[in-house]
């Protein structure tokens, strides 16, 4: 896949990871104590405590890794400074060179075609002479 499509995929991946991170944390976070007036909320000693502390770390590590990969892809962009005009100038140069080489190729082709016809004519005459047993002049 070309690099711009890879960059676009990476942006979409970062979006995916960011919203997954925030959403998962928001959905699974254990309840927090709002104010000293209210009693401590009932703790849920289900599977939350153990692996919940790891999840933010894992998810944020994945997010940062994706962001670093994006930076690496940006660094690998083969953009030459010079912009649009330089590219268009190069294209016209290449087109002119292409035309020249095309004409040269055409000339060589025609010359080769002529020589081929000459050789074929010679063969025809030689084989005619052989068949008719004529002495060469």
């Amino acid at each position, binding site marked *: 896949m070309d690099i711009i499509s890879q960059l676009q995929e990476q942006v979409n991946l970062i979006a995916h990871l960011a919203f997954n*991170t925030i959403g998962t944390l928001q959905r699974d976070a254990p309840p927090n104590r709002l104010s000293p007036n209210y009693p401590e909320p009932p703790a849920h000693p289900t599977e939350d405590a153990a692996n919940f502390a790891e999840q933010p770390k894992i998810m944020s590590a994945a997010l940062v890794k994706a*962001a670093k990969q994006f930076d690496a892809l940006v660094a690998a*962009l083969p*953009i030459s400074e010079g*912009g649009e005009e330089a590219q268009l100038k190069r*294209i016209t140069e290449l087109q002119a060179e292409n035309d020249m080489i095309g004409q040269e*190729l055409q000339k060589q082709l025609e010359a080769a075609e002529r020589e081929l016809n000459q050789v074929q004519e010679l063969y025809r005459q030689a084989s005619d002479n052989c068949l008719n047993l004529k002495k060469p002049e």
Partner: protein
Amino acid sequence: MATATYPPPPPYYRLYKDYLQDPKSAPEPPPPIEGTYVCFGGTYTTDDTLPSLEEQGVRQLYSKGPDVDYKKELRSLNGDLQLHVLELADILIERPSQYARRVEEISLVFKNLHHLLNSLRPHQARATLIHILELQIQRRKQAVEDIKRRREEARRLLNEALTTLDGN
């Protein structure tokens, strides 16, 4: 949506009755459309440029100007994005009811990122064209060399054959 039978084919076929005998007696095909046109109730345009962000109502975060340094802007937008994600996490801790603004800002950064990447596509197209032209020039040069070589070879063989025949 109301269903209906298919419309009948347009009656223009009668104009082409004598096409085989006289191709000019039938009307010419319509010329290519220019500008905007309406197709099945939707307007389309023939000018396929990428609309700028202001036209889509999105604020542009990276610096405008004729030459944008794509790498620098992409990297700074990436950093902005990470900061906004952190801000969203913080505001969910302190003032959870104000998440909407932060989420809007994150989506703004994403829109800018995608617009910047899309604006790189014309550059990529021109670079591809340059590459193709270079390849074609190389192939043509190779073909010219090949033909020259073969002609020389043929000429040499003919001379050899001539000397061999003359020797007899």
